[in-house]
């Protein structure tokens, strides 16, 4: 008696169950739309007004990923195990980097351990909350790579082609901070 009931229930719901499983598999392995919170990635990504519909949304790719410098990634925050954060990778395992917050005091370089990365906010005015504060980030904390800005429509762009506004080309590295800023401003206006 109950066997026919169960069969009937399955007949009716198998499409929902199947669809649900496929959606979750897609979400876990292909990607999903992620909402940008916070100003730490301005001006590349602005949260804008806090009204939900106007917040910027990006495509977060969950395809197999190897960290590269310049990638914008979403990762589990080392400060709050359950919250997600979004920053740009400034250095990967094996590389050495001078942390941006310490550049004025002429500070020590940090060598990134294999399996770790160094992330920094595009917006240098925000109070830490990147590797300058919590140090190297373990690769497996990375949830996915941000590929496209999808919303608002007017700002649609391929974010993979963007660079940190503070990225310096090799020939400017020997100059001091003030000369470097001049050069960057020049190239922006030319």
């Amino acid at each position, binding site marked *: 008696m109950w066997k026919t009931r169960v069969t009937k229930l399955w007949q009716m719901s198998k499409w929902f169950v*199947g669809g649900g*499983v*496929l959606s*979750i*598999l897609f979400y*876990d392995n292909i990607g999903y739309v992620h909402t940008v919170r916070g100003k730490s990635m301005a001006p590349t990504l602005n949260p804008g007004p806090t009204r939900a519909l106007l917040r910027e949304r990006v495509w977060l790719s969950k395809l197999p990923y190897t960290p590269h410098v310049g990638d914008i990634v979403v*990762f*589990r*925050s*080392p*400060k*709050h*195990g*359950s919250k997600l954060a979004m920053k740009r990778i400034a250095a990967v395992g094996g590389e050495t980097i001078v942390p941006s917050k310490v550049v004025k005091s002429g500070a020590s370089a940090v060598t990134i351990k*294999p*399996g*770790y990365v160094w992330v920094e906010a595009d917006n240098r005015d925000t109070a830490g909350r990147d590797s300058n504060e919590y140090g190297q980030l*373990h*690769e*497996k*904390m990375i949830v996915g790579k941000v590929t496209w800005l999808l919303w608002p429509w007017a700002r649609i762009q391929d974010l993979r082609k963007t660079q940190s506004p503070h990225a310096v080309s090799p020939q400017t590295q020997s100059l001091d901070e003030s000369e470097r800023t001049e050069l960057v401003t020049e190239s922006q206006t030319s």
Partner: protein
Amino acid sequence: MQTAMVHGKRVVNFLNKKKREISYAVIGASLGTYFITSRIVTTAVVAGQSMTPTFNKNSIKSRVLVDLITPVTKVKQDDIILAHDPEESDEYIVKRVTALAGQFVEVDEDCGGAYTRKYAYQGKLTVPTGYCWVEGDNKSKSHDSREFGPLPLGLIKGRVLFTLWS
């Protein structure tokens, strides 16, 4: 003659239909299994001696069931967890959570017999928010938070529920 041909065609159609049904079943089962083992529960084989006698007693590797659903914020003290190895990105570790964020940990030297083992994280410290402190049950043979420091909660994959067989 004609009846034989019609009958033959019916048999072929029947076989094709069965082949299709079997393919759907195989694909459905594969996706279903993948879904379950990536999101709900999975099994893991415990390597090494760091968790004896809880696991791997008598050098037989224990196979355990891991719960992947419970959110990382609900991890409690004394839970055994499966996590990404903080030192080897592609490896995993199975350890017990001995302290949570905000709790106090005191790491003493291990005075075992002929030598004194000094730990990287010696002395007293408070576990920072977003982290936990893990140690193996076999204190003398475990490479854990006493060596690599607090473990970020984000590296935890799930809680070990029980041993399937050992």
